[in-house]
C-alpha cells in the first residue's frame, strides 16, 4: 500500500502539480520565473558553488535521461567495457562536483549575512533535498555497481510504465533502499519545482552560446572602456564554455575509441604460439644476416685472397654482386675473352649501388640519378651526374690446386691465360695486394 502511494500516486501527483503550478507561476508572476540571482550580493562563493553544481548536475541529468530515451543504444554503448568504466567514472566525478557545489552553496546561504536576508526556508529545504539526492545517488552507485547498466532493466521500464499509464512496480521491487529513497526524493523535487527557485530550469539560456555577441555601447566615454573589457571577458567565457563542451565530447569519444587500446599498448601484445615462433624465426634470420656481414668484414681483414665466384658461374650480361676489400659492393662479369671483369658497384656520384644487368652497349645503370657506366672501362656516359669512372678491380684466377692461372693487376695488365679444361674448376679471387698496393 505504501509502495503504491510512493511510487505511483506520488509521481502522477508531482508531475501534475509541477506542470499546472509552473504554468500558473509563469503566467501570473513572470518576474519570479528566474534563478533570483544573488550574484551582486556575494560573487565568490557563488562562483565556487554554483559553477561546479550546475556543470555537474546538467551532465548527470543528461546521463539519467539518455538511457530512458534510448535504452537499446545505451546498452549497446555500455557493452564496451571501457565505455562502461568511463561512464561510471564520470558519474562519480560529476557527483563529487555536485556535492562540492552544494556544500559551498549551502554554507554561503547559512553564513553570509547578506545572503541570509534573501534566503527563504524553501531555499534551504531545496538545498538539503538536493544534498540527499546526490548522496543517495552516490551510495547506490557504490553499493550496487554499474547502475548505468542495470537501470535499463529496472528504473527505465518502471518510468516507461508510468508514462504509458500502465504502472508496474515489479521492476523496482528488489532495488536497494538507497535507490528507492533516491526515486522518492526525485518525485518530491519535481513536486517542489513550481514553489521554489528550481523553476528557473525552464529558462536555461542555451541561446547564450549561439547568439551573436552583444556589445552595449555607452555614450559616456568613461563607461565605454570599462564595458569593452566586460565585453571581451564575456566573449572569452563563451569560447571557454564551447571549448569545454568540445573537449568533453572529444574525451568521451577518445575513451570509447582509443583509451583501452592505448592501455593495451603498454601491456603489450600476447602472441599466439605460432606467431611467436614466426617472429623468432625472422629475428634469427636478421641476426644471421648481420652476423654474415660481420664475418665478411673479419675475413677481409685476415685473408690475402677472397673468393668471388667460380669462373663458370660468371656471365656476360648479368653480373654477380660481391663485397670488396673496403666492404663496398662490386660486380663480377665475364668478358668476351672468357676472363673475369670486376667492377666497383659504388656509384661515384652519390654512392648508390649500381645495377648488375648490362644493357646492349655493355653498360650498367645507377638507378639513383641515372648514370650509365661502361663495364670495360668504368667510364660514365656523357652528361651523367657521375663524373669519375667506376674503378675496375684486379683479380686472380686459381685452379683447384691453388695455382695461379691468370691475374689482372691494379694497373690493368693481364697475365696468363686459362685453358678450356681449367675453366670448369677455376675460381675467381680478389687479393689484398691489389688494394694495399
Amino acid at each position, binding site marked *: 500500500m505504501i509502495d503504491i502511494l510512493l511510487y505511483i500516486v506520488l509521481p502522477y501527483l508531482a508531475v501534475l502539480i509541477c506542470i499546472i503550478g509552473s504554468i500558473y507561476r509563469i503566467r501570473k508572476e513572470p518576474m519570479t520565473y528566474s534563478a533570483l540571482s544573488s550574484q551582486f550580493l556575494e560573487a565568490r562563493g557563488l562562483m565556487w558553488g554554483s559553477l561546479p553544481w550546475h556543470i555537474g548536475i546538467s551532465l548527470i541529468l543528461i546521463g539519467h535521461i539518455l538511457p530512458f530515451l534510448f535504452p537499446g543504444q545505451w546498452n549497446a554503448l555500455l557493452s564496451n567495457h571501457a565505455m562502461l568504466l568511463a561512464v561510471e567514472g564520470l558519474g562519480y566525478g560529476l557527483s563529487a562536483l555536485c556535492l562540492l557545489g552544494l556544500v559551498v552553496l549551502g554554507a554561503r546561504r547559512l553564513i553570509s549575512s547578506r545572503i541570509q536576508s534573501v534566503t527563504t526556508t524553501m531555499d534551504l529545504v531545496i538545498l538539503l533535498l538536493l544534498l540527499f539526492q546526490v548522496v543517495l545517488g552516490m551510495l547506490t552507485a557504490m553499493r550496487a555497481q554499474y547502475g548505468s547498466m542495470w537501470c535499463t532493466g529496472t528504473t527505465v521500464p518502471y518510468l516507461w510504465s508510468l508514462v504509458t499509464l500502465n504502472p508496474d512496480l515489479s521492476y523496482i521491487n528488489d532495488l536497494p533502499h538507497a535507490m528507492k529513497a533516491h526515486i522518492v526524493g526525485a518525485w518530491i523535487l519535481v513536486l517542489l519545482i513550481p514553489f521554489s527557485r528550481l523553476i528557473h530550469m525552464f529558462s536555461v539560456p542555451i541561446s547564450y552560446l549561439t547568439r551573436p555577441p552583444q556589445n552595449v555601447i555607452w555614450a559616456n566615454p568613461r563607461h565605454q572602456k570599462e564595458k569593452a573589457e566586460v565585453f571581451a571577458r564575456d566573449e572569452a567565457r563563451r569560447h571557454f564554455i564551447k*571549448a569545454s563542451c568540445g573537449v568533453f565530447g572529444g574525451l568521451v569519444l577518445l575513451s570509447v575509441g582509443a583509451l583501452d587500446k592505448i592501455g593495451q599498448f603498454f601491456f603489450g601484445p600476447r602472441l599466439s604460439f605460432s606467431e611467436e615462433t614466426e617472429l623468432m624465426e625472422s629475428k634469427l634470420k636478421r641476426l644471421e644476416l648481420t652476423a654474415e656481414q660481420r664475418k665478411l668484414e673479419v675475413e677481409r681483414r685476415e685473408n690475402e685472397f677472397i673468393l668471388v665466384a667460380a669462373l663458370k658461374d660468371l656471365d656476360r650480361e648479368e653480373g654477380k654482386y660481391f663485397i670488396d676489400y673496403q666492404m663496398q659492393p662490386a660486380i663480377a662479369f665475364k668478358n668476351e675473352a672468357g676472363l673475369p671483369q670486376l667492377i666497383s658497384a659504388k656509384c661515384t656520384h652519390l654512392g648508390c649501388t649500381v645495377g648488375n644487368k648490362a644493357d646492349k652497349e655493355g653498360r650498367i645503370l*645507377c638507378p*639513383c640519378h641515372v648514370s650509365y657506366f661502361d663495364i670495360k672501362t668504368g667510364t660514365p656516359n656523357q652528361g651523367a651526374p657521375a663524373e669519375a669512372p667506376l674503378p675496375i678491380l684486379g683479380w686472380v684466377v686459381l685452379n683447384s690446386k691453388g695455382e695461379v692461372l691468370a691475374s689482372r693487376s691494379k694497373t690493368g695488365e693481364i697475365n696468363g691465360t686459362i685453358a678450356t679444361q681449367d675453366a670448369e674448376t677455376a675460381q675467381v679471387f680478389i687479393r689484398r695486394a691489389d688494394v694495399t698496393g
Partner: protein
Amino acid sequence: MVETQKVDSTEPETGNASTGDTKPALFSFLLERFPIEKMNFHYMVEKKEVPVHRMSWGYYTGGLTFFFFMIQVVTGLFLLFYYQPTVSDAFLSVEYINNHVSAGPLIRNMHAWSSSAMIFFATVHLIVAFAMKSFEKPREITWIVGVLLLFITFTFGFTGYLLPWNQIAVNATKVGLQSIDNLGQYLGPFSHIPVQLRETFQGEASVGQSTLGRFYAMHVVILPLALVALLGLHLFQVQLHGMSKGVDEKTKKTEKFFTAFFFKDLEVWAYAFLALFVLASCIPFESFLPFPLLEPYNALGATPPGIKPEWYFFFVYYPLEMFNFLFIIIASTIVVAILFLTPWIFKGTSRRNLRFIALAVSAYLIVMTIFGEQIYHWWKH
C-alpha cells in the same frame, strides 16, 4: 634606455672602436632584447595583447607547430617502448609495432603524419613571420632562434626517417650523407673536412650500426633537448616583446592574449588533433610513398630505383638533381645567410614588399614540392 642608445650611436664618430668600447654596445643590445623590468607575469601574460587584422591567422601558425611537436614527443615516447635501435632488430621492431602492438599502427601513423604537419607549419610560420615583419627590432633574437628551430625540425625528419632501417631509408640516407662529400672539391686546403664531417655523423666509413646509433641518439635525446631549450628562449622572447603588429596600417582592434587568444589557440589545436587523429586512423602514412617502405635493408642488393627523400626535402632535392652542384651550394649558402641576417637586411622594407617576397618564395616551394618530379623529367629531356 634612450640614453644608452644615444651613447652608442656617437661612439663610432669619436673613432674609438677598441674592444673596451664595444662592451657597452653589446650590453645595451642585450638589455634591449632582455628588458629586465618587463620580466614579470603581469607584463608577459596579463598585459599582452594580440592585434586583430586580416593577417591575424598568422599568429596561430607558431602555436600549431608547437602543438605538433607535443604530439611528436608523446607519440615518440610511446614508440620508444618497442623500438630497438640495432641493425638487426630495428626493422623488425617497427614491423612488430605495426602488426602486433595494440594501437601501434595508430601511434606510429600519428608520429609520421604529425612530423609532416610540424615541418609544414614550421615553414609556414617562418614565411608568415617574414611577411608580417615580426623580426623587427627588438625581435632579432626571436627570429634567429626561430630559424635555428626550423633547421632542427628538418634534422628531426632526416634522422627519424632512417630509424625503421628499411631499404629505401638507408639508401636515401646514404645518398643524402654522401652529397656532403661533394663539397670537398670546392674547399681547396680544407677538402678533407666534408668527408670528416660525414664520417662523424655516420660514426664509421659507411652507413651502418654506428650510424643508426648516432641518428637514434640525435633523434630522441639531443635534438629534443636542443629544441626545447631554444623553444624556451623563443617563447620567452615572444612573451617579453609582445606580438608584433603585423601590418603597416594602424590596427584598431586587439584582443587579450590571456584568455581570449589562448582559448582560440586551444580551439585550433583541438581541430588539429581531430584532423590528425582521423587521418592517422584511416590513412597509413606509407600509402603516399610509391616504393616498398616495408622491406628491410639489404646490404647486397642494388639500390631500388626511384629513391627520393620525404616530400619536405623536394625543394632542395630536385634543384640538386637538375643544376650544377656548385651553383646549388652557392645559392643555398646565400639563402641561409639571408635567413639569418633578415632582421638587418630587411630593416627598412615595407610589409607590402615583404609580403610580395614571401608570396614568391611560397610559390616556389609549392611548385617545387608538388611538381618537382615533372619539372625534373621535363628538364632532363
